[in-house]
């Protein structure tokens, strides 16, 4: 059941995966920032700057808006907790993570999105206009992105006869021709758009803007400060790393450990790092040459992702 074949092994695998995501997430953000800066002709902050920022935030005093309720304090914890949970049981470095049998793709993705919902609630909880504006926008985008994601997962599950995530990854490893199948490629594009939307990257949202009125994601977390903001930042970067980790393992599973044992797991971990960093560099490069879409054009983009996902699902049903 577990990676090491034992409870100790399983806990070890989970622990290493969680640590990798918790440290790797901020590093990934740092790498993406660095790439962006370099491509724009700037030097940019060091790659480990997000980790330094986290250390700074966690050493600060806790400040919460006077009018806010417990929701405001719980939301960042939920965000990080969901990321930690997924980091433990998702097939990141190995196709045999602990509790792998329960790691249903649908469930995993929606546990991940639970974080977005809790942030939206927290933003409403503050009662500030920006919080309400941000939640409204984020939920609109979520409502458009999630159907696309659902159908994309469905399209991938049909040929594999399962929506179990480790099984989906393993099937790509065993039958590489499945990865090049039209439904997987269409689902990949759809999945990618959803990742950009859910993690607040360009062209959906501009993570580096200071303009309150254009913000989507940032508007929701404007009221956070100190350790709470640290949790939000950490949760966000973990989520980005997880989404990219799932993406690369679904569409390029090579290197992931398919056997138990420390050596295979180490190689799997290294492969994961390499693939996620490559994907991050790809997204950062794309961001340099794109701009932020007009808010009212986003439905078009996300509807496009949905259509691709539907086509993928239909192809999967017909091609068999």
């Amino acid at each position, binding site marked *: 059941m577990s990676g090491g074949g034992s409870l100790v092994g399983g806990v070890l695998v989970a622990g290493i995966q969680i640590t990798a995501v918790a440290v790797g997430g901020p590093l990934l953000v740092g790498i993406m920032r660095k790439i*962006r800066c370099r*491509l*724009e*002709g*700037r030097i940019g902050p060091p790659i480990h700057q997000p980790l330094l920022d986290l250390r700074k935030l966690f050493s600060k005093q806790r400040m919460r808006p006077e009018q806010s309720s417990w929701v405001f304090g719980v939301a960042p914890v939920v965000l990080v907790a969901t990321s930690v949970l997924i980091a433990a049981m998702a097939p990141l470095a190995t196709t045999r993570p602990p509790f792998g049998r329960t790691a249903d793709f649908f469930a995993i993705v929606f546990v991940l999105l639970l974080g977005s919902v809790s942030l939206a609630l927290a933003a409403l909880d503050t009662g500030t*206009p*920006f919080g*309400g*504006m941000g939640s409204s*926008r984020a939920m609109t985008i979520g409502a458009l992105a999630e159907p696309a994601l659902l159908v994309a997962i469905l399209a991938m599950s049909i040929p594999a006869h399962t929506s179990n995530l480790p099984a989906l990854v393993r099937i790509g490893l065993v039958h590489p021709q499945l990865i090049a199948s039209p439904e997987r490629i269409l689902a990949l594009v759809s999945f990618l758009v959803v990742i950009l939307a859910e993690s607040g990257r*360009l*062209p959906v949202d*501009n993570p*580096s*803007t*200071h*303009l*309150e*009125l*254009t913000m989507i994601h940032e508007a929701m977390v404007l009221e956070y400060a100190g350790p709470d903001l640290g949790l939000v930042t950490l949760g966000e970067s973990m989520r980005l790393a997880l989404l990219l980790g799932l993406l690369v393992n679904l569409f390029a599973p090579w290197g992931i450990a398919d056997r138990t044992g420390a050596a295979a797991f180490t190689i799997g971990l290294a492969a994961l790092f390499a693939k996620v960093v490559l994907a991050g560099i790809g997204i950062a490069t794309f961001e*340099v*040459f*794109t*701009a*932020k*879409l*007009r*808010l*009212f*054009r986003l439905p078009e983009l996300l509807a496009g992702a949905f259509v691709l996902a539907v086509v993928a699902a239909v192809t999967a049903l017909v091609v068999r």
Partner: protein
Amino acid sequence: MTTESPIEHLVTERPRRAVVQVAPDQLVDSAGALLAADYRLALVAAHDGEGPLRVVYLFVAGPPDQRIELHLAVHREQPQVPSLARLSFSAGRFEREMRDLFGIEPIGHPRARGLVLHQHWPPGWHPMRADAGPRPPMVDNADPYPFVDVEGPGVYEIPVGPVHAGLIEPGHFRFWVVGETIVKMKARLWFVHKGIERLFEGQEVTSALPLAERISGDSAVCHSLAFCLAVEEASRTEVPIRASELRAVLVELERLYNHVADVGAMCNDVGFGLANAHALTLREQLLRLNAEVTGHRLLRGAIIPGGASVRMLPRLDRLHEIGERFREIVGLARSNSIVMDRFTGTAVLSATQAEEIGVLGVVARASGLCHDARVTHPFIEPSEGFRPASRNGGDVLSRFLIRCDEVESSLALLEDFVTRDGPLSASGVRSTGPGAGHGTGMVEGWRGTVVHRIEVDPSGILRRVKIVDPSFMNWPALPEALVNTIVPDFPLANKSFNLSYAGNDL
């Protein structure tokens, strides 16, 4: 210069300069006749000296450069003027400013309420009055600002500022939105009243120059030049043509660095950081060029009353290089379909709206009006073939392209002026005879037409300086352009106007 001739006579005669004393009952008709004859109201200044209060209305037209002043005496005991608000929107704003600062009541103004001074300022205290004295304490629990109530199903109110996330000046914006669409927007400004016009009073001309350079940090040249032009007119100083050439170089250098920064900033506001990064690099090169030319990155200290002096003039190859780099940045932006999509059709200010509000400069020229003081009120003949840029769209794209066009025309003007032979310093001599005692200076700064009107006594002490930054005229246009724009496009629209808070609120 003072004549008693009726306005009709002036309108047909079209003198370069004229001063007309008007009685209160003639004011509205006179102003109406001037406005009908294509004059625009450039400035309204109240004065508190010896005798009764005075109000000066400056009407201008061009080309050729024509300026007519209407002078109106106002009773000190019952200070009131007939309002021109129904003839001209900007007149109404000048009157509200005058009402706050001088306590002169505009009779018949449809919205005679405070403009410059917020509610908590001591009531009945008018800081520009000669006998104002030190400021009484601010009122603790003043009435709240009378925002209009916008009601209806689904209307949501978003207050923003005055403290913003970015490094920008303070302004409070209130949006009433349905969904993301702006139904109405109100800008509440005037958080930075510094009493600059009062600071000028009693200073000598030369010691006031640094103050003129600091009215708005990014407009050091156009404000100091407008001030100097006004001083020169008041003291009848002949400015050598060489000094005017050097001044023209400085005005265009100022336009260049600001327009380059704006072009980058507009791209940045749609998340296209690449163009902004390059524009900022180019801006830095321009600032260093400014430092080489004048010794100051923001071009301070080069213009003096009667003359100008620089350390060097930019070489042609550097101007060409700047032009090439700029075209590259514009090319990046224009070839990006998302950027163009965001710019096109966003925050449209129609020509009619622009005309009625009386906007100036970049904003006016993007809406099809062709006010450009370099043509209408030139202090030097512009180069041959110079035409003010003009676009008709009135949207963000037009304002973006106008800036691109103007960078090109500035470079062309610079090329002409830096290749003319002459010394690096030139200065005129002040005439010994008594001057007119008052003068106006008009300069097409990078934002639009800057107007200064000064009064100076025979010993060279400034008695009154009235400053009009184009931002004062343009701010009311922003809410108009925003109707039916969506909230996330506001920062972009605002940036495309790029109005000054400091220049607006003196």
